[in-house]
């Protein structure tokens, strides 16, 4: 197996991570998975089960995956979110999300970095969020994603001269179980966003995988430190309430 074709995807069992793994497998990569949940997609070249909020367990799992050779592509996808008004904020939520959304990325990059440096080649993709620009009812989550965006910039500069790129994909409103769990359909903060997407629909996990696949390509060799929002245009700022309905009516009139 060409070591350059080994890619590690974290959070591979569900949602966006699962779609990324399926896409990369179809593209011919040897996809390695890391997840707390062992119900992973078919066709993985390797899998290690670990709770990535536990650094020691994560290091051990990564060591097992590296026994098969260096990993020169990494998708830091694992993450979660919790809907929580600031009036109800707890330290526990922030600590959990720091460990899950940021600790996991730090540990994975640390583990694969020596192999990337030795190869003079590496591709790191961090899954951030449109929430890097802030999100009401989700401040603890938005903080971790904005932190991951800052890490993307810092790591891009730190590793650039070694041929290792580090970029981010920022999903908008994407059709996953996590999205549905955290976004009650009639909540004002949710309708402000879902009603304001210029494409007038939420996105599919495979559309995130498309952007990830782009950054992972060997030919994407001069792109680093960037964040590509895959959001149906929502990161331009949501359209004002009712505007999509007006536009739709105008479309119907031709």
């Amino acid at each position, binding site marked *: 197996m060409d070591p350059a074709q080994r890619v590690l995807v974290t959070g591979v069992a569900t949602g966006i991570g699962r779609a990324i793994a399926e896409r990369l497998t179809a593209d011919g990569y040897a996809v390695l998975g890391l997840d707390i949940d062992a119900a992973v997609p078919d066709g993985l070249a390797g899998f290690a089960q670990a709770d990535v909020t536990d*650094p020691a367990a994560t290091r051990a799992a990564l060591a097992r995956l590296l026994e098969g050779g260096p990993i020169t592509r990494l998708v830091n996808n694992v993450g979660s979110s919790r809907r929580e*008004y*600031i*009036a109800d*904020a707890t*330290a526990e939520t*922030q*600590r959990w999300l*720091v*460990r899950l959304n*940021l*600790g996991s990325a*730090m*540990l994975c*990059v*640390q583990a694969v*970095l020596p192999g990337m440096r030795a190869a003079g080649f590496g591709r790191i993709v961090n899954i951030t969020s449109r*929430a*890097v*620009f*802030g*999100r*009401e*009812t*989700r*401040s*603890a989550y*938005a*903080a*971790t*994603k*904005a*932190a*991951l*965006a*800052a*890490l*993307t*910039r*810092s*790591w*891009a*500069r*730190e590793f650039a001269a070694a041929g290792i790129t580090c970029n981010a994909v920022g999903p908008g409103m994407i059709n996953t179980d996590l999205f549905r769990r955290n976004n009650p359909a009639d909540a004002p903060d949710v309708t402000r966003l879902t009603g304001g997407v210029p494409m007038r629909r939420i996105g599919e996990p495979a559309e995130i995988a498309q952007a990830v696949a782009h950054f992972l390509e060997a030919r994407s060799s001069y792109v680093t*430190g960037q964040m590509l929002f895959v959001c149906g245009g929502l990161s331009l700022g949501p359209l004002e309430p009712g505007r999509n309905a007006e536009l739709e009516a105008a479309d119907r009139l031709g």
Partner: protein
Amino acid sequence: MMPPSVAGQPQPPLVLLLGRGSPFAAAIERRLAAEGYRVALQDAAAAPDEEVSPAAIVFAPKVPRATGLAETVVEEALLELEEALVAPTLVVRDLVARRGPDRASRLLMVVDWAVTGPPGATAAAAAMGGLVGLARSWALEFAPLGVTANIVLVGPDADPAAPARALPTLVRPPSAEDVAHAVAFFLDPRAGSVTGQVLAVCGGRSAAAMPV
């Protein structure tokens, strides 16, 4: 000059400055005192004091030591990061979100240049990025209350204790007083329609760079 009262606060309004040890704390304190505010200076990690009703809260947090990723001890970096993010969250929870009309109506986060992602600054970049994400979320969630939340991004040349740098700024490098001036702008009652913004006080270093 005494500023007009903010959101029904008695005069002179109190500013809670959570930044003891910040290189900008003294200049911010002097500037705000000169404008007629009372300033209470506390540790960045101080627990919220439920007895006080500040009109504004200025966060000038500590910056974690800059290390490259390979040298970063992840367990330590995560603890630092958790503390950096939890402390301000509990302050705004208790002094803004759970308050009535005596809530603070101006929130300001003073962040270090590390948010722009210099190399070799993993823990610092993450902490500063996280604080920007928090402040932007406060801007959205507190907007219906008329509370503003903004960010002052300080250039790398502003800390008088930092080593001199060879790279030129476009205009003169910022002083601590320049940082204090930006803070005073956002706290002014006349800045009530400005929220969720990042103002870089950096001598022009970010002028040709991507926004954070």
